């Protein structure tokens, strides 16, 4: 099932607050505990990009404006 869109994460602005991961309707967001970013936090990563429906919920809930959302048009 092809993705409807994708998100772009500004890795080094993310504070690893984990808010967005709770609001993704298709549950494809997780904190990447294998690394720390420039601020010293564990940044966000998309686990399954193909499932993204570009609903912008994650971006709306991000307090630091780290996420940009794009929707693919056919």
């Amino acid at each position, binding site marked *: 099932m092809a993705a409807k869109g994708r998100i772009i994460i500004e890795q080094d602005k993310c504070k690893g607050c984990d808010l967005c991961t709770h609001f993704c309707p298709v549950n494809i967001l997780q904190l990447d505990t294998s690394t720390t970013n420039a601020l*010293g*936090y564990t940044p966000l990563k998309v686990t399954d990009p193909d499932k993204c429906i570009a609903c912008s919920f994650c971006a709306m809930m991000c307090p630091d404006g780290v996420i940009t959302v794009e929707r693919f048009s056919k």
Partner: protein
Amino acid sequence: MNDSERLVVAGFGGQGVMLMGQILSQAATDEGLETVWIPSYGPESRGGTANCFVTISKTPINAPVVTVSDTLIAMNQPSLEKFEKKVKKGGRILVNASLIKEHTYREDVEVLKIPVNAIALELGNLKVANMIMLGAYIGASGVFKPEALEKVFAQKFTGKKAALLNLNKKALIRGIKEVS
């Protein structure tokens, strides 16, 4: 310990840097020594840089803020860069090798690299990385015997935190072993 030890303990908020300094000052107080603990208090609650200055002395302490230090404990890269220049010649720098990878160190100081994050994860809780470093420090400097710090642990880790007491003691001993 010669008649005074001036220490900078630095890292980022959440690494337990302030607690490390307080434990040393408490141990000094318990042994009737003079001591001053000074936090760098900034507005950021979490994530910002955090450091404290600890002075331990047999004689009354004058200038409370440590400007030239005998020892620097750097728990992350920015704090190493910020405080490295102020360590006296022949001083000592302990670095958290888990977060501080390549760095060209001064020739005129003793450098001890301890991967405290990695060891802490080995012991099962990243939170005790600071106690491993504390162990390394007293092991390298001989300022206190482990029992002096364990006595402070018993006062600090009570109530909800009591469960952490043994883990912190283990971390302390492990830190000492890393440098002996």
